[in-house]
């Protein structure tokens, strides 16, 4: 029985050995070499850290980053990835949540770990890769890994102003990938074009589907997303057959017009399927992809990090029209979806309810945050005869007449921007730390993909922008800052959110 992602690694090494699993533009690595690299890293970690403990990873976008992740798993530990590109204050918050006593960094980022004030054991990746693998030690660690052993902690925006660490088991990752694979049917002739940063949930597909299927993953250069002809050119040159991207990742090249000029169309990659998720895609931009790739299957996915990847999918079987709403579809295998109304009952067909998820693919909870975990991972009010956790997404949905699920927005103020989930409270809290910001409200214009901040205070928009760019990941920095003498209020003194919403949408 497959109990961990490592079982897939072993099987893949036996089946595909010297074939390439990952390339990153500079380097490539075979299945066998990946296993060997992970065993070396795993030995170095196991010598430094007890099983079932977090290990932070501060490495760049290269083929050895997944080797670090798998090495940590081999040591029976779980990885907490840190993107060196995000501001230091955010990385410090991640360290503060995970409190790792062991951190692995590549040579390029080792100094950064210390600059962040990290004082625990620091393992240099390049040295760890030279460690002789201690197979006995790894075997011992392996014996204590079960399906529910945590594999990683990934961080998402938290409304308290601190990122939340979503702790996820081997089982959850395997279940998601198995459900996805059942729909997309990859094999060893497939090549995935990886868009997502490796510390981001979306990258689990690109890193681990090859272990299940023998496919190869090409890590695309992030610059290429700004330069769409280069992007399509690289996809073509690498023979990419499969994209599992954020909706925004698909929108960018289409919006920049790469498919618009039939006379000047770049050579197109042999895409078999395109899977997207993260936000509601723009229909006209999706149609540009569909027209450019008439034989490619397009699949819409929906799901939060807490449900590991995506929990529902919809295979789009026609060219989309501007005014239609694309369903989020049906649950993947291993997922159960309940729509629950405000009064705690199952929603009738067509009735709105909160989208709730059960099954073996749920995250284990938020790391070291029992209160937040208890709030979102609950016992279903309907299905309450035994203790089975259910994750409340905070998303609203309904079942359409066609039996498919539809996404209807949020219960709270959270929004999705460029595929990232953002709690406006986190941005407001940061902005209010700056002298000269007395009060502020963060809103979102989805059509223009602009985060807006209305504020009262003496700070200039530039000062606030500079401050927030130093404190938050760049995707969270507001683009439109509006100073006001007073924020609009209702007669009872509460903020007039409706008015702010109208101003945001430019009405």
């Amino acid at each position: 029985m497959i109990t961990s992602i490592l079982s897939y690694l072993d099987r893949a090494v036996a089946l595909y050995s010297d074939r390439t699993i990952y390339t990153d533009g500079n380097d490539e690595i075979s299945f066998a070499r990946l296993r060997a690299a992970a065993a070396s890293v795993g030995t170095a970690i196991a010598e430094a850290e007890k099983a079932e403990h977090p290990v932070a990873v501060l490495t760049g976008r290269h083929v050895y980053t997944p080797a670090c992740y798998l090495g940590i798993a081999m040591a029976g530990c779980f990885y907490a990835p840190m993107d060196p590109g995000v501001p230091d204050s955010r990385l410090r918050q991640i360290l503060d949540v995970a409190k790792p006593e062991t951190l692995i960094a590549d040579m390029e980022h080792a100094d950064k770990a210390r600059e962040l004030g990290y004082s625990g054991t620091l393992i240099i990746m390049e040295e760890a890769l030279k460690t002789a693998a201690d197979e006995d030690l790894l075997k011992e660690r392996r014996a204590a890994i079960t399906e529910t052993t945590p594999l990683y902690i990934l961080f998402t925006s938290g409304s308290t102003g601190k990122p939340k660490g979503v702790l996820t088991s081997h089982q959850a990752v395997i279940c998601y990938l198995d459900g996805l694979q059942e729909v997309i049917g990859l094999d060893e002739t497939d090549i995935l074009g990886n868009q997502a940063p490796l510390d981001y949930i979306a990258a689990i597909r690109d890193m681990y589907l090859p272990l299940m299927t023998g496919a190869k993953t090409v890590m695309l250069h992030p610059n290429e997303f700004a330069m769409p002809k280069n992007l399509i050119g690289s996809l073509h040159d690498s023979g990419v057959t499969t994209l599992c991207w954020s909706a925004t990742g698909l929108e960018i090249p289409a919006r920049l017009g790469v498919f618009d000029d039939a006379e000047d169309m770049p050579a197109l990659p042999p895409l078999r399927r395109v899977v997207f998720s993260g936000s509601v895609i723009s229909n006209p931009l999706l149609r540009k992809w569909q027209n450019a790739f008439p034989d490619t299957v397009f699949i819409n996915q929906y799901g939060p990090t807490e449900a590991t990847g995506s929990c529902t999918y919809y295979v789009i079987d026609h060219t989309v029209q501007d005014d239609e709403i694309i369903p989020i579809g049906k649950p993947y295998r291993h997922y159960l979806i309940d729509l629950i109304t405000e009064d705690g009952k199952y929603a009738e067909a067509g009735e709105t309810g909160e989208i709730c998820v059960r099954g073996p693919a749920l995250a284990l909870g938020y790391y070291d945050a029992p209160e937040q975990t208890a709030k979102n991972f609950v016992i279903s009010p309907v299905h309450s005869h035994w203790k089975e956790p259910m994750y409340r997404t905070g998303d609203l949905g309904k079942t359409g007449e066609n039996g498919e699920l539809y996404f209807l927005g949020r219960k709270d103020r959270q929004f999705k921007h460029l595929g990232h989930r953002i709690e406006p409270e986190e941005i407001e809290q940061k902005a209010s730390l700056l002298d000269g910001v007395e009060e502020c409200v963060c809103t979102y214009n989805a059509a223009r993909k602009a985060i807006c901040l209305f504020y009262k205070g003496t700070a200039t928009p530039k000062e606030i922008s500079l401050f927030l760019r130093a404190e938050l990941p760049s995707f969270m920095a507001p683009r439109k800052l509006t100073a006001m003498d007073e924020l609009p209020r209702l007669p009872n003194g509460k903020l007039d959110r409706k008015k702010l919403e109208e101003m945001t949408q430019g009405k």
Partner: protein
Amino acid sequence: MEQLMELLEGIRPDIDFANEKSLVTDRLLESFDIINLVSEIDDEFDVKIKPADLVPENFDSVEAMWALIQRLQDEEF
């Protein structure tokens, strides 16, 4: 070029556009910045930046962007 500088600072106030010469190559400008930039340049300077113009060499510095805008404006006539 001042007009362009102002537009750039509006999009990314944290970047020293006067001195940075590898804005795209060093990933100072991200893909989403480029989308905003392209639509604002198109509007502001009445040009149409085409996908073929979207190469790092045209966006790595203010001077390169200015040269691109002028070239596109000349092509209009």
